[in-house]
């Protein structure tokens, strides 16, 4: 059992490290701004998730009781990561994209970020 947890924790940690690295690496490697946004919001989040899982497993295996508060961090990350990504994407759209470079917004005519009252490009 102990062996199992050791392996599990090790696996979590290695996975976490790799994903964390990949996330930040993607930030450097990817060549367009919107794509760069993908890597950290997902890979890094998963990296942290791995660490948190390792922490929980570690606490369960070695600690006095089951540790669950790591779930709070997970919760916050899952809740906030999309908003962060959304906002940074909005910044990008606001600064670098125009109505022409974006796909049509369907029935609404415009995307919210570009939904300017006088209809001219910022």
């Amino acid at each position, binding site marked *: 059992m102990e062996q199992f947890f050791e392996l599990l924790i090790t696996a979590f940690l290695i996975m976490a490290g790799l994903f964390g690295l990949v996330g930040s690496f993607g930030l450097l490697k990817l060549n367009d701004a919107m794509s760069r946004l993908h890597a950290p919001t997902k890979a890094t989040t998963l990296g942290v998730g791995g660490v948190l899982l390792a922490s929980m497993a570690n606490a369960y295996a070695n600690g006095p009781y089951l540790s669950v508060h790591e779930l709070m961090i997970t919760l916050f990350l899952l*809740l906030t990561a*999309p*908003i962060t990504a*959304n906002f940074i994407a909005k910044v990008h759209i606001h600064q670098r994209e125009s109505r022409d470079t974006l796909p049509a917004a369907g029935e609404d005519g415009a995307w*919210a*970020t570009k939904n300017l*009252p006088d209809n001219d490009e910022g």
Partner: protein
Amino acid sequence: MSLFLIAALPFLGALFPALLIRAGRNAAAASAGFTTFLAFVGLLLNAPAVLRGEVIQARLDWLPGLGLNTNFFLDGLGLLFAGLILGIGLLIILYARFYLSREDPMGQFYTYLLLFQGAMVGIVLSDNILLLLVFWELTSLSSFLLIGYWKHLPEGRQGARMALAVTGSGGLAMIAGMLILGHIVGSYDLTVILQHKELIQASPLYLPALILILIGAFTKSAQFPFHFWLPHAMAAPTPVSAYLHSATMVKAGLFLMARMWPVLAGTPEWFYIVATTGLITMVLGAVIALFKDDLKALLAFSTVSHLGLITMLLGFGTKIAAVAAVFHIINHATFKAALFMSAGIIDHETHTRDIKRLGGLRFLMPITFTIALIACLSMAGLPPFNGFLSKEMMLEEAFHTSWMGSPYFIPGLAVFAALFSAAYSFRYIVHVFLGPKRHDYPAHPHDPGTGLWLAPAFLVFLVIAIGIGSNHIVGPLVSVAAGAVIGGELPYFSLKLWHGFTPALWMSLAAVTGGLLLLWLHPRLSKMWNAAPRPEAKVIFDSLLGTLTRASRGVTDALHNGSITRYSAIMVAFTIAISLYAYQSGVASEATRAVQQAGALPVIGWICLVSATGFIVLNHRNRLLALVLIGVVGLIVSLSFNYLSAPDLALTQISVEVVTIILMLLALNFLPKETPVESPLAIRARDAVIAIVAGTGVGGLIYALMTRDFSAPSISEFHLANSYKGGGGTNVVNVILVDFRGYDTFGEIIVLGIAALVIYALTEAILGSKVRAYLLNRKPDSPQDGDPHPLMMVVATRVMMPLALMVAAYIFFRGHNLPGGGFIAGLIAAIAMLMQYMASGFSWAAERQKVYYHGIIGSGVLIAAATGMGAWLAGQPFLTSAFGYLHWAPLEEFEWATAALFDLGVFLAVVGAVMLTLESLARLAWQPGMNSEHAMDINPARDDAAKLKEEV
């Protein structure tokens, strides 16, 4: 009458006119006259004893620690001077009542005059040189007011300031001299000092003391080269001139020399300084007086000359010269005061004091003419008037005195001065009163009413009386006064008109004859005089003062140029310099603690921190970028706290960081987004050097501290040991915050509360000013996106808010035992609310926020204070905590602590302060268009429902 009362009466009298300003001119004059009269009577009551040779004393401790006491004494010299001051004072009060016009504020005048009178009486009665200094400076101040009495005259203002500057500075020099004198003797009491001639004159500090004291005396008595202020003081109303500049203030310097004569005189230093100064002054004054066309200027320079004469006599250092000096003081006071008054009458009646516009007045103003004639002849030194007597004595003494081995120097110049003295005296009579009547007087001159001529008439009566019956009338007074000056046996002297054909008589004769000759030559001499270039004292003084003022302004402006960057640079550089000095002048010990090995994490943290900091410096012009980089610094600092066993700090740091960033972003919204390059490269290099040295110093200091042990065990060992036992918590940092040092925390939340109040108040001030219009119409600096309240953000914050508050509660409650506490919890709660503001907009969120932040701050502080005061109920000091354990079945036992209540106060104060701060900033940015009725702009559920309704 007690000397205290005599000294105090004028001051009391000064109160009445001030209080009676509305009661009218007569009331003011009467009250002033009455108090002066009372004082004069009091003085006379003491006179018999003094004339018997007694010295009357009155002592009262004031500041015994310093040796400054209200000690008065009355001896002959004091009696003489006090008599002059009060007696002539009475006459002046009378004269002024009729002289001043209806427009002149009479109450003010008499108040100033009596203040001055009191100060003068104080000088002459003081038995303590520090007390004397007090009165001395008071005369400068009150004369400033009197000279400037006619505020509308620019000459009055300037004359007053000049007099104050000169006599005031002399007084300051005298302070130093007196302190030295007191130091030599070991007492500031005059009666003591006067008994230590040998001690004083043997002291190496004698000369400095002498010079400093003489500067005081010379400035006051208008001795060369300080004489120039006196003529300019003539801008004062004539009663003032008659009082201050003939009889009293200018005599204060003479009084002082006479007073200190027993201990300071008799040395070569004294002789050469005092006698020479007096001689020069006498000659100079006499010569200039002849060429003055303004009556008062003529009299002023004549006064200068006569003051020089008396100074010279005192400077001779012989006893008989001192007697002559005392005698001439009396005589000069009588004839000069009378002359000033006569000049005032002329001015009053003819509306001019210009000799060139006068002449022939003897027909129109016979009484005035008589008065002036007698006084002038006395001034010229003609018998049988009193001026003759003392001038004879002067010439006699001058004849016997040699200067630097030359026996002719002093007698020669004395005659020369006497010659001019006679000449200007004659001129006053001849050019003003004699000659043909003119038709172009500025007014219709006639003799004044009795009130105006009575006082000078009395004085010329004295001039005659003393001249004829001097031995009887003033003999005893002169004896006793001179006795006080000499401080020992009086030499033989006789005050009479005829001493036989003495050298002095021939000299007098020469002077009078020559005087007439000079008057005859006056038109030609006057032309030459006016053509000759000569230094004008006023110009020199003005330019000196102007230079000083300009220099002051230059220095002040150059130093305090409003450049805070320079002020800061100076502060930092100065701190570095002084700290380095402190370090190198001490002994530095060896390090006692081993340096710890750094793992990879600290190195990475270091790289992040240092490079982010460096980039902030390099890129600070891009303000937003700098703020982003500050975020990196804050994160790393927070991580470092965590790494180095300070989880509480990590929590606090990261929370504060976020609020600070938000605050800065709110402000940056209004500010320019870029900082232009302004400092030249040299300045930047200088700043860089200062910064690097400071950084090296601070870094080096903390390195040195970290590698050394405490000199004694830290007090925190007590905190670790007692945190649980005495404070009921295991998180020692928190227990320190809310218990051991709860008082600091109390102060800290108040700081935070005040910060919010200040920000709120300033917001109100800005919104109440014309800036408001600008703010309401302000256009954004850069294009805005089309989605002010994004849907996703709003939804996320709605979910996050209860969670965040839960976390805040968690952090709050665990604080006493684990990292956390009211402060961090407060920040988290505030941020949770702030997220609502950010997502849904200020007006929407504020509408739903029912509790006023002022109230939250106030209640926080009050709860903390009340918790602290609760301890009083238990008889314990403020902020004494209590804790215990409660057990309510079926719950487990749990702990309560008053510290938690205190922490609740902290929590509330923090929430209120942060929210009030950010809300204030948000209010600045508020514009009418921002009142959205919805939390999010895009809400298909809402819109579609509305559409549906429309369709139905």
